[in-house]
């Protein structure tokens, strides 16, 4: 058991050590004296340490914005999917536009959102929300549609109303797919929040990671910029892990993919 976990952890750790060593070597040779382009690992670590408070504040701000957008996307996404599954006609009418909306680049729309909702974290949350919404709708709808026909018939046979069928049967049946959507959206919500912060960020010294990244870039604080990019990556990753873990917990009693582990 111990050996197995060592074998699991050793390879990625080895890769990380090699990468940092290569990075260190490159900054000492190719990029020597050009730390404003590629700072050395120790410069980045120093930037981290020297700005720990700012980076932590910014990370928490981004997390808060992403979280609000994400939770709103879950509520609205599941509601829209339920509505679309309610009637074939409704789905036929609306789904093409849902797909079309999905292909609109959020980055391109973000300035419009800021124009409508102002230079505040409200706009950031809305952009994060839009970014997270579609995987949740798509996956939930897929799950709702693939509910066992026999079970649908059984509920019909016992005169269950559509709402009872939705709540007692279809939404729980769709849970594995909904959770797959939630996993995808967890990362997207952080990306959405940072994109939003880019748009509202210029000139703003306080604010989330996106704001700080633009700020660091403008002043050529490249080591700080690296530190913030790493913080943003870790934030997205941890968010994803937290969502995955809660999902596995929810499914642990019944779903094959969660059970077999």
């Amino acid at each position: 058991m111990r050996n197995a976990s060592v074998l699991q952890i050793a390879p990625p750790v080895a890769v990380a050590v090699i990468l940092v060593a290569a990075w260190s070597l490159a900054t000492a040779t190719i990029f020597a004296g050009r730390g404003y382009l590629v700072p050395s690992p120790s410069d980045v670590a120093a930037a981290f340490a020297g700005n720990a408070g700012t980076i932590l504040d910014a990370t928490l701000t981004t997390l808060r914005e992403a979280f609000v957008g994400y939770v709103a996307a879950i509520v609205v996404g599941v509601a829209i999917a339920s509505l679309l599954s309610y009637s074939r006609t409704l789905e036929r009418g609306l789904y093409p536009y849902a797909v079309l909306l999905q292909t609109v680049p959020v980055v391109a729309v973000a300035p419009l959102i800021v124009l409508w909702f102002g230079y505040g974290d409200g706009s950031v949350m809305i952009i994060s929300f839009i970014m997270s919404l579609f995987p949740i709708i798509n996956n939930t709808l897929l799950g709702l549609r693939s509910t066992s026909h026999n079970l649908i018939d059984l509920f019909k046979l016992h005169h269950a109303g559509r709402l009872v069928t939705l709540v007692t049967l279809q939404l729980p049946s769709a849970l594995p797919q909904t959770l797959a959507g939630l996993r995808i959206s967890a990362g997207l919500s952080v990306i959405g929040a940072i994109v939003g912060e880019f748009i509202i960020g210029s000139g703003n010294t306080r604010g989330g990671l996106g704001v700080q990244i633009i700020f660091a870039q403008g002043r050529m604080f490249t080591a700080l910029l690296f530190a913030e990019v790493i913080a943003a990556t870790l934030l997205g990753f941890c968010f994803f892990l937290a969502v995955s873990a809660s999902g596995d917990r929810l499914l642990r009693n019944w779903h094959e993919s969660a059970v077999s582990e």
Partner: protein
Amino acid sequence: MDSSTGTDVSIAGISKEYSTGVRALEGIDLSVGGGEFVTLVGPSGCGKSTLLRIVAGLVEATAGRVSSSRPGNAAFVFQEPALLPWRTVQANAELLLELDHVAPAERRERASESLRLVGLAGFEDSYPHRLSGGMRMRLSLARSIALRPNLLLLDEPLAAVDELTREGLQDELLALWSAVGFTAMLVTHNVTEAVYLSNRVIVMSPRPGRIVADIEIPFTFPRAAELRSTAAFAHLTGVVSAALRGAHA
């Protein structure tokens, strides 16, 4: 169990034509007595499952009518157990009672009683994925039995389990039938199963399905596994098979 108490289900002139023009059933007349165990056998696609669904009210017939002496108290068992994997065994057994708005205390009691009847007492808090295929099917039966149905419609419920489990489940099904006293209508394409379980076997022709034979199975209940190896049993499976072949020709 020969307590046929009048007609329970009466099927008169049932025909079914799909919108695609496919004729599934034509002129089905069948009357099933209270407490009977009637099995429909026929080649794949002969409409026997469709007939069962028409009796249940899941499919609408193009012509004819189905009447029941005690309507609204039928339960349907599918080929797959069709359980809710996120519910415990107990909660699965209570599902249909819940949909029928039975009060929680009575729900618990009736579900527990059904689980006892199918031999799943002690598994109340397990989840379906922990059960074997045979146990899942027994849970599916318990869920229906909890309704105390007067009519149980079974759509090839034993088709997906292995041979040994199947024979065990056949005996349990018969035990349930005599303990609970429902009228049973079973669909199968397994002739041995049909003869072993039923007091009447209805043989259907290929599409469009018609009734080509109505064969009385005179063995008394309870029946035991040895019955399957008697000459009389072999003779009756021969008769059913011949009727099936005749229908094909």
